[in-house]
């Protein structure tokens, strides 16, 4: 009954609106007079920046509402596909196809409106010419989000109007992939020429446009050079792929654009030296760092994220947490680890296939590259006031048969044979000897029953942040034994790491990426008939850029430009860095550097797509993990209540997520959303759909 009355009231109110005296322009629609003022433009542009498709913290698989952007629940996102990350919400492959389309064209329309309106205000509005250049930057930025997904797209270059109520007047066919890139590059060239050099956080300037140009010109160059197998034309229009002869042209543009960025005074953040904190602070201090080129800031009450809440180790977050599990395959790309040169894999056993005993929880990573330490919270690291305590189990200090003690495992003279082969294909769980000598738990840190040593020391079998054997005690479990640190805010406490409250900035473009773009473009040129460009030796320039990155990272430097050779690339499991595929060793070194430097920044997924190595690199790939085991004998507790003692480490396929991952070649170009095909009959679908 109540519902019926409400219905009647709503209906009645609806009738009342039909009165002539209320027929006034609606307040909710902005007119030219509102926008084309000094304050109006600033407000309008702030709104546009808020809507650009930046892959920030709030990227997710949510394709229903915002095409994969602007959703707090960032559990499923591209870095699950590349060997960077895995967690309990997504144990298999994840392909980031979220159907981004409508929102992009809305932003593009807003830009086109400005480009039509602003020229009348040159000389009236103080910044009119700068706003025009900025609108073209935003237009190119938004088109790129579409073009990198679909290849060629309809290029709406001017604000459209409906003619005679006929929707056909709005229909535009897809341009070629090549024309789409050229159109964006033209917009960016205009932006570089006419935008202000002033650096303002969150806002673009001419150097942001140049840095962005170096990114997308490298995309176009790589597609032209490596995407030939996936080119696809309909009615003579090359919707997928770019003619190979354009490759060098794009790489030249990328190189030149990267050099422009240098004029803006940007630099690598080096205030804390080549240390782990130095690298972590690139992100923690993003708002004030000379390395940040284009960032997005957050504010409580308007736009926030939940990265800390979801990605901190579970113990360091109020709920959720634990999603930042990093694969061992990624860690093995770094210097300073006991890698087997024959395979490139971490080797924690001796020639007799018995575990090497490490004297402390910290010893294995003691000499690791500072950039790796800055990217991970390693066992023993103190973060948010808590010390990381990672284990898969405790090696018992007395093995009994009935009440008779038969063995007393002693780290100094009790060698243990490797439990499970680490060959990239053995997925079995631990069994046999393991079960009798290891005390383990599948319970969370809050409820583990301690293992009590013969001397009375109580040890949490799996540590407070350890792996649980992947037996599903919740999505926040540690799946790889390695937890990430990049982006996490160290100034939060566990109890303030709550949902919807993180405001640390996201860096969309930083100077390190520009250097890597430049190195890649330079080496692509050097290896393809352009040894000298812009009076610079391309191979030497690439070498110099890589070494600048490595010097800041604390990594081993390349010895000479000749290291960036055209020798055969190292293959998977045949040497260090073999995880990252490339056409030759020189490009492999550059791609590995990108993997190390730019992981967890939404860059690698798109790199693998533009290099067209995704289907060969992520082919029957099973993520690997690192399981530490503590010897109960000799273990003591430190001031954090965590054990100090001798450790062995087992490398193996992730216990909790052992599926073979594959990338289907159809995903090099995503399907045009079905709804759009129905709306615009001129749209042609991509290949393989």
């Amino acid at each position, binding site marked *: 009954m109540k519902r019926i009355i409400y*219905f009647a009231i709503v209906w009645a109110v609806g009738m009342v609106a039909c009165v002539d005296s209320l027929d006034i322009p609606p307040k909710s629609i902005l007119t030219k007079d509102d926008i084309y003022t000094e304050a109006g433009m600033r407000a309008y542009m702030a709104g546009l920046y808020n809507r650009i498709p930046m892959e920030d913290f709030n990227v997710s698989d949510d394709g229903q509402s915002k095409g994969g952007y602007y959703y707090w629940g960032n559990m499923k996102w591209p870095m699950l596909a590349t060997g960077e990350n895995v967690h309990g919400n997504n144990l298999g492959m994840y392909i980031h196809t979220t159907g981004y389309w409508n929102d992009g064209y809305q932003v593009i329309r807003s830009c086109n409106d400005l480009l039509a309106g602003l020229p009348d205000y040159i000389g009236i509005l103080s910044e009119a010419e700068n706003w025009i250049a900025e609108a073209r930057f935003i237009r190119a930025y938004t088109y790129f989000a579409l073009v990198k997904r679909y290849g060629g797209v309809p290029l709406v270059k001017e604000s459209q109007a409906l003619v005679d109520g006929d929707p056909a007047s709005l229909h535009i066919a897809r341009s070629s992939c090549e024309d789409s890139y050229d159109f964006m590059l033209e917009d960016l060239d205009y932006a570089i020429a006419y935008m202000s050099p002033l650096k303002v956080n969150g806002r673009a300037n001419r150097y942001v446009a140049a840095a962005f140009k170096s990114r997308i010109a490298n995309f176009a160059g790589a597609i032209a050079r490596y995407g030939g197998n996936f080119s696809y034309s309909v009615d003579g229009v090359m919707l997928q792929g770019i003619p190979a002869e354009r490759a060098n042209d794009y790489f030249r543009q990328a190189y030149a654009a990267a050099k422009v960025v240098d004029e803006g005074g940007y630099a690598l953040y080096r205030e804390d030296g080549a240390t782990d904190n130095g690298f972590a602070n690139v992100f923690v201090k993003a708002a004030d760092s000379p390395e940040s080129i284009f960032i997005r800031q957050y504010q409580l009450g308007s736009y926030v994220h939940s990265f800390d809440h979801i990605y901190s180790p579970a113990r360091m977050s109020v709920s959720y947490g634990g999603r930042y599990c990093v694969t061992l395959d990624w860690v093995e790309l770094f210097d300073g680890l006991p890698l087997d040169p024959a395979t490139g894999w971490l080797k924690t056993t001796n020639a007799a296939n018995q575990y090497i005993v490490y004297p402390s929880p910290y010893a294995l990573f003691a000499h690791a590259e500072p950039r790796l330490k800055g990217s991970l919270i390693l066992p023993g690291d103190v973060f948010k006031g808590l010390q990381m305590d990672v284990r898969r189990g405790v090696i018992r200090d007395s093995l009994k048969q009935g009440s008779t003690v038969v063995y007393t495992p002693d780290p100094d003279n009790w060698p243990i044979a490797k439990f499970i082969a680490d060959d990239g294909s*053995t997925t079995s769980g631990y069994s046999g000897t393991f079960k009798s000598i290891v005390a383990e738990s599948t319970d969370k840190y809050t409820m583990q029953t301690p293992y009590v040593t013969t001397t009375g020391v109580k040890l949490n079998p799996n540590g407070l942040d350890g792996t649980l054997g992947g037996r599903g005690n919740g999505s926040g479990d540690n799946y790889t034994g390695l937890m990430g640190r990049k982006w996490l805010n160290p100034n939060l406490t566990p109890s303030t790491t709550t949902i919807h409250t993180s405001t640390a900035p996201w860096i969309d473009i930083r100077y390190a990426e520009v250097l890597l773009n430049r190195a890649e473009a330079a080496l692509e040129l050097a290896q393809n008939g352009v040894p000298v460009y812009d009076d610079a030796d391309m191979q030497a320039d690439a070498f110099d850029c890589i070494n600048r990155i490595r010097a800041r990272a604390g990594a081993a430097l390349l010895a000479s430009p000749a290291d960036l050779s055209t020798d055969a690339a190292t293959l998977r499991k045949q040497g260090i860095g073999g995880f990252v595929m490339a056409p030759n060793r020189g490009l492999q070194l550059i791609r590995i550097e990108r993997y190390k430097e730019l992981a967890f920044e939404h860059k690698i997924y798109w790199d693998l797509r533009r290099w067209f190595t995704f289907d060969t690199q992520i082919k029957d790939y099973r993520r690997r993990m690192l399981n530490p085991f503590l010897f109960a004998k000799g273990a003591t507790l430190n001031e954090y209540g965590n054990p100090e003692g001798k450790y062995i480490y087992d490398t193996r396929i992730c216990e909790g997520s052992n599926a073979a991952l*594959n990338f289907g070649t159809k995903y090099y170009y995503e399907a045009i959303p079905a709804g759009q095909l129905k709306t615009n*009959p001129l749209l042609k679908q991509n290949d393989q759909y």
Partner: protein
Amino acid sequence: MKNSDMKKTIILLLSIAAFGFYSCEIDNYEGPDATISGRILDPDGNLLRTEPGSSNMRIRMDEISWANGDTSIAVIPRYLNVKIDGTYVNTKIFPATYVLTPVEGAFYPLEYGDTVVVGAKAVHDFVVTPYLDVNWVEEPYVTADSCVEASFRFVRNGGPNGEFMPDVQDYRLCISSNQYVGNNNKYDDLVSGAVTVTNAQEAVTITAKSKRLKYFGTDVYVRIGVCCNDNYKKYNYTTIVKLHVP
């Protein structure tokens, strides 16, 4: 409120509601009740050996009759799954005219599909040219050390229209506890992944051996698939052999 007023109000509101719901006609369109079935054959008339579902191939179905040639109406393709023996059937299809194309399989892609009028019951067979014929040389058997061993040969087929022949990439020995054995259903622990093969090994006898079996006194199903490096990297298979593990 008096009872009679209440009645009046209800009647009034109901009539308003009736107006509101006027457009909500009952959907009286017939449900999808047509059936399509058939076989996927190689040029010699043998059924294609594949996997159940859509993992090794599927059939793309483009409906063409309802738009009446109006190209402004976009038709979104739908897909049919296939059975492991190379047959397919679907009993919930709207009667219409379709272009049916076997896609995403280990065979040379077809340039055009077949136009099929699906009435109450349609039967349609397809002919595809598999990249490879894979056959046993010595059928699988359980070795003395309780492993599965077998040998096989593959032969590369030329494309029906002189297409570029994709390179052979790897083979897999697949062992399962049930008859739906294949790359999508196998014991991963018994075999260490795919084994690389090259074109030069064509027609050469290759022997494959598993690790030690884990369960005894039971049956296992075995077959070998070989894949080519094309867009899809799907497998051409041998027949399935049932083995008793003593």
